[in-house]
């Protein structure tokens, strides 16, 4: 009986040791995963910021480039606008004249 009790105590201590060791490793792993997740969340947020900045810059650049290339409207477009305005004001088109 005494031997059995000794064996039982030994096994319980061993179980506790194994569990502590195993859980310690598990907690360490979980901490590492949490840290990684946090890092990934931060990275994701930063990527979002970068994306927003890039999109904003791109939109501004597109508008600026468009302006430098064509905001002063082309001669053809201005001519078309003038013809449209004259038409709406009642001028006869050359074919009517």
């Amino acid at each position: 009986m005494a031997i059995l009790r000794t064996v039982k105590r030994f096994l319980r201590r061993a179980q506790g040791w194994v569990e502590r060791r195993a859980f310690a490793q598990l907690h360490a792993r979980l901490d590492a995963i949490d840290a990684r997740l946090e890092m990934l969340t931060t990275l994701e947020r930063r990527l979002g910021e970068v994306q927003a900045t890039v999109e904003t810059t791109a939109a501004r650049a597109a508008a600026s480039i468009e302006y430098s290339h064509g905001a002063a409207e082309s001669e053809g477009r201005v001519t078309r606008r003038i013809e449209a305005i004259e038409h709406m004001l009642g001028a006869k088109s050359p074919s009517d004249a």
Partner: protein
Amino acid sequence: MTATIRFALDLQALQTDGIADRGIGRYVASLSAALQRSGRLAAGLLAPELPPPLGLPPELATSGLVRFDGVSSMRALIDESGPIVHHVPAPFLSCGPLDPTGLVIGPHWETVGLPRVVTLHDLIPLRAPHRYLPTPAHLDRYRARAAWVAGADLVLADSEHTRCEAIELLEVDPVKVVTIGCGVSPFFTPRDGTDGEHFRWFLGQLEDRPFVLTVGGSDIRKGTERLISAVGQLVQAGFDLDLLVVGELTPAWRTRLDEAAAAAGMTGRVVLAGAVGDELLRACYRRAAVTVMPSLAEGFGLPVLESAACGTPALASKTTALVEAAATPLATFDPADTGALSRSIADLLSDNERRATVLDAQRALATSSTWEAVASRAADAVDRMGEHRPESVWRRVQPPRRVALVGPLPPLTGGIAIYNDRLLRALDGDGTIDAVTPLQASPFLPDGVGHFSIDTFGVDARPASYDGVVYTLGNSDGHLSTVESALRYPGWIWLHEVRLAAIAVTALESLDDSEFSGSLAWLLERSYPGRAPLHGALRAGRSVRDLVTAGVGLLPLLAERCRGLLVNSQVARRLVLLDLAPLAHHPPVHVLPPACPPVTPTDRSETEKDLVVAFGIVSMAKRPDLLVDAAARAGCRLAFVGPCPDFLVQVIADRARVRGIVERVEISGAVDDAGWKRWLARAALAVQLREGASGESSAAVLEALAAGVPVVTNLATAAEYPEGTVSYLLSADPDVVAGRLQDLLARPESQRALAEAGMSFASSHQFRDLAQTLMSLVTN
């Protein structure tokens, strides 16, 4: 649901060429009149963008129920009516790739969320896309519109066939598709001896001749060529028959049908009458031996019943909705079989009993197909829909106010672009705002502000769906796109300058002198009919200054089609009233308050005590030559800060050399925001001169006031600011200007008083105040 549900019925079909006087146009006119007679019409809606309506029933026109569609009339309808549905009876109008799709969709009706009802006439283009939808863009647009139709709360169908098409092709819930049929106008009655002269006048060659009648068109689907062959077979078999084809035909189709007639041995026996009015059509129905509809597909087939109502039996293809219109199998034939077609005609012409049976069946159907019955079925369908809707559907909720601000925005340069940008930021939260600019790419806008390129305004966005459209207009050819839109879609015109001669001069600059004079004279006659200032204006030529002196403002061209004019000062308002037609009605002219940027006093410790700065784009109208003279006499330094054309750099340099003050005059050219602020900090005084008055205000002056920089100016609008806000010059004489500069530079306490008064003015004239005033004016 106890209150009567009424229809806000779209009448655009009556404003559309090629539709108004054909089947769908007649359907819309007749249904709207019948709904009005039954008391179920809340309004007939005309599109303000389209021509006046053709065939609008007189009783409807005089009823007071017809109004122009737009968000304002919709708001009024919501307020004054009980429950209403928006009914679009011709949903496939404006369905091409470049068509203004918003015309039919009606964004304001979509926003308010009232139940949408459509009438479906047919889906033939989906059955034969290769024929009716020539490009993928056409197909995409048609499918998109079909999806919009399918999304309606209720689809009214002309026929059972069309109802089945909606269920099969559009996958509409069968419960939501109701057949209401089509009506025969009471105008179509049997022969009464009253129209002989009319028929003889137009179609004398057919008087006393037996003829087959068909209602055709420039479309192979109508089967007219096959009918010519069929009648040709009958003629060869001994029948004495002619064929009358009514309906608009293109020249190509006329040729095609003439060739078909020749091939069938029918030369001289086929009469192509083209489009005919109802009176002649009735006379034709009354005189025809038989009416034949050999079409391969129709949404209803109204001519069959119209013919029967006039006492003539009709034969129709054994396809689509024509089977329903034919009323009896005895009156149908296989449209792909010419022999069957000719046999059907022969049987009907030679068998009196058969003829009577067919006519009786069709007459019975025609008699029951009244427009009153159609309107009643439509109303019943809407009532049934209403019974299954929650009360909240009918609640009168007004949508948020929507305003479009049309004009330049950064990165486009110029004061108006910056002014518009600041205004948009201040408008935040005042409703729904869309910016409409000449840019294709969206500029950098505050959250919630939408953007349309000006060339898509009216196509992708419907101007009538805005509570207010505000066109911001300056005096350069960069504003031509705004002018074009303002003429096309009338709204509020915000005149930052009220003499628009420069727009005309720059727009016409490519013309030679003779053409220029001709165009200018035309514009003047158009602006000031019968009293054009031709002599002075033509002498002025291309000089904007001389044109303004000659009294050329050109405002009447814009004022004649706008909702109102907005200006920035009382001075501008007075100038506007002087330019508009005297002793005549003109649009309202409202004065908007000036708006300054946020008050941010500059650090005056950096101020250079003898430095006077002229801020803004340099032009001769700002009298740089006079400023150099004044600086020479006042003994101060002078800087021009802002874009300066090369020739003016030369003019200023030459002047400074002559006056011996080269080392005291500086031209910075264009500077960025930081540079602008540095110059504000350095300036002891900001000066702003103008030659003449065009009612303009100066953003540079308002910015200087907000920065706490004392301002010296002769700008007419500045005279309206509270006394002491600026040092106001009554004269731009160099001695007067020099004396004022000298005086102020010598008295720091006067500079401080001006600066404080200026900042006080700026703090009570912010863009937020302007935004509220503007929204209140243009949305009420």
